[in-house]
Structures are given as structure tokens and as C-alpha cells.
């Protein structure tokens, strides 16, 4: 029947989401189709029922209080003055601590990654992978296909998990070479965008997230359990953070 065409348009009409020409097309259709008229009425009364039932539940006040308490504190001016003395001690301690740590940890940002791999090389590899036909060696959304594919090709096992439910479907994997080091590249989709997550082994200690952007591409680098990771993409930095949290969880 012709109204199958209109079955979802009916909902766009109901929600005021059709553009003017499609809305008037639908209205013209309504004049000659009692079936759609009654379907529209059914949906309208269902919506009325939902409205009257007031199913929306609001957050308990205690939740709001707990969340506010867990955010970094704001202080009143009086409290601030009171804490001034303590604060100077804290600043002095921090300066000393930073001084000590910097002996151990200071390296120019570009050399944070082991194996002498720099962000520029990661970005180049990312851009190369976006050329037609270069993105994946094994194209599969199934982590149980992608993970075994890496076996025997690498001397380490990168974590391969599909996050389709969270909006980051796994698209596949490939091997890449960065500065002479063979690395695993996991490819995730984010709407129309691709994210490359490069993984290679390291003997250095764990390092928490470090992020930045280079030529408009956001990247996040971290080390965990003997593996070094660098995720890079043109998605919003917040999206990239989200994926990285999922992977390192």
C-alpha cells in the first residue's frame, strides 16, 4: 500500500521535523488516506498519554550535593585568607617536588614516546592510512577476527575491543611502521571520521594521558602495562578522550 511510504514521515510530521515541502506533501496525502489519518491520531493520543503520565524523573537533591562535593572545591574569600599561610607552604613543597621530578622526567614533549617515534610520524601514518584502500589490512567489526589476525604478526598482543555500543565501532586493524618499529594500528569509526590507535611495545613505566593537537588533529598518548599507545583523529578532542578512556579501562 502507498502509505508505507508515509509511515515514518508521519512521525517526522508529528514531531515537526519535516521540511515545509515534505510536510505539505504529507498533508496532501492525509486528505486522501483515512488510514494515515487514524494512524496519526493514534500516535497523537499515545503522545498525550506519555505527557499526562509525567514519567520524567528528576535527580534527587542528594545526588546533586554529592556531585558538587566531588568537584574541585571553591572557597569563600574568608576561607581563602585563612588558608593563605598553608598555601605558601604547599607552593614551596610543590616547587621542590617539581624540581626533583623534573630531573627524572623532563624530556622534550616530542620525545615522550619510546622508540624515538614522534607525533609528526604518527600524524603522517594517520594521513597515509586515510588514502583509499590504506585504512585496514583486516577489515572487520568483529574483535574476534581482528585480534587473531595480529597473532603471529607481532611479538605483543594489542587490546582489541569493539566499542560500537558506545559509538566507536571497530573497523579493523593493520600493521604500520613508525621509525622502523612495527606497530599495530586499530581503526575505529566515529560517524564519518576515522580514529587510528597505534600500539607498540615498550619497556618504560606507565604514563598517564598526554594530549595535544598537531595541524588540526587531536592526539592522545599514554603507556600502560608494557605497551605504548597513541590515538589520533580529526574528531573532537572530547570524543577522542572518550574512546581512550574506553580502551584503557
Amino acid at each position, binding site marked *: 500500500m502507498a502509505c508505507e511510504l508515509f509511515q515514518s514521515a508521519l512521525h517526522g510530521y508529528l514531531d515537526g521535523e519535516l521540511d515545509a515541502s515534505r510536510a505539505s506533501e504529507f498533508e496532501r496525502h492525509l486528505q486522501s488516506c483515512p488510514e494515515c489519518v*487514524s494512524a496519526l491520531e493514534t500516535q497523537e493520543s499515545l503522545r498525550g498519554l506519555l505527557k499526562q*503520565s509525567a514519567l520524567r524523573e528528576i*535527580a534527587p537533591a542528594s545526588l546533586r550535593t554529592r556531585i558538587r562535593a566531588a568537584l574541585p572545591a571553591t572557597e569563600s574569600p574568608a576561607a581563602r585568607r585563612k588558608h593563605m599561610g598553608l598555601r605558601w607552604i604547599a607552593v614551596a613543597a610543590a616547587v621542590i617536588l617539581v624540581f626533583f621530578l623534573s630531573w627524572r622526567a623532563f624530556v622534550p614533549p616530542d620525545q615522550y614516546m619510546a622508540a624515538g617515534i614522534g607525533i609528526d610520524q604518527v600524524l603522517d601514518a594517520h594521513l597515509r592510512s586515510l588514502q583509499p584502500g590504506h585504512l585496514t589490512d583486516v577489515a572487520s567489526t568483529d574483535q574476534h577476527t581482528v585480534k587473531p589476525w595480529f597473532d603471529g604478526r607481532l611479538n605483543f598482543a594489542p587490546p582489541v575491543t569493539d566499542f560500537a555500543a558506545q559509538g566507536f565501532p571497530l573497523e579493523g586493524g593493520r600493521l604500520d611502521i613508525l621509525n622502523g618499529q612495527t606497530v599495530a594500528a586499530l581503526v575505529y569509526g566515529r560517524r564519518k571520521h576515522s580514529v587510528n590507535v597505534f600500539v607498540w611495545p615498550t619497556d618504560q613505566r606507565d604514563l598517564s594521558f598526554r594530549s595535544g593537537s598537531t595541524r588540526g588533529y587531536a592526539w592522545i598518548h599514554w603507556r600502560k602495562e608494557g605497551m605504548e599507545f597513541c590515538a589520533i583523529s580529526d574528531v573532537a578532542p572530547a570524543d577522542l578522550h572518550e574512546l581512550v578512556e574506553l580502551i584503557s579501562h
Partner: protein
Amino acid sequence: MLDQKERERFEQLVLPHLDAAFNLARWLLHGRTDAEDVTQEAVLRAFRFFPGFQGGDARAWLLQIIRNSCYTWLEKNRPAELTTEFDESLHFSRTASPEAQALAGDDRVRLARALESLSPRSREVIVLRELEGCSYKEIAAITSIPIGTVMSTLARARNHLREALTRLSAKPFKENEVPSGL
């Protein structure tokens, strides 16, 4: 100092949407207790991501993070839920109070049960559209459904809701008829 500024901005832009966040979590997780835990954790996570938030629709941004946290939680705690298209048992809300149980005949309770029986993907679009009043564009941003299929997803979800309601009703849910007692 920086934290302080960020916190103020977060309180102004994001925290006003806490009710929307909690409501989505409550319906995705079937209960207030789990929803409170997941919402708290997700809002604090949102605060950590906040420096990456580049302005725009703060509600959609927060709801997207809440939704992802809910699915992660479901995967860990109730994986079966994510693979069942339709819950035949039409179970009660896990936290339904004795009063709510006593009112089991009530239309509001019946509607809540019908909504609970839908798959999470159907349930979330109904909650976002009908309870939160989100536009199709916002629904697409929150759920990662392509904008072109939001309409058909909603159409399917509403039809499922109507069927579930009919099955729960003593008398079928008919056109033009709002059940009495509301």
C-alpha cells in the same frame, strides 16, 4: 585557579542538565539506585573531559557521555539486556515501590512498564524525544544514530510501545482513546 574557573563554567553550562542526565540513566538502567551511581560517575567523568568541550549543546554533550556510561554498565552487569530485542516478561521496575506495586492497574504504571519492556535502543529514543523534548539532531548526536534514521527509529520505537501497552492493557489501546484515570 584554572580548576576554579572550569568548575564555575561547568556548574553554569552542564549541571543544569543533571535532571535530564539522571532521567536518561534511570530509564536505561531500570532503576533509581543504579542510575544515581552511574550518573554521579559519568558527570564527574564529564568534568574531566570538560576542557575538550568546545561549546555548543551542553545538554546533548552531557547526555552522550551518560548514555555511553549506561551502555558500558549494562554490558558489564546485564549483557543479556543489550541483545534482547523485546522483553517478553515485561518485568517491573526493579525499584518499584510498594505503592507503585499497589497501583499496578494504574495507567501511568502500565505505561512505565510498557516503556521498560522495550529494547534499550527503542527506550532511549522515546525518553529523549517524549520526556526530554530533544530534536532529531540532538537525538542523533546523543545516540550516534545517523540523523537520517532517527525518524524511522522513533517510528519503530513508538509502534513497539503501543504494542506493549496493548498487551498490558485489559482492553486494547485503541485509536483516539486515552485510558481513563489520568
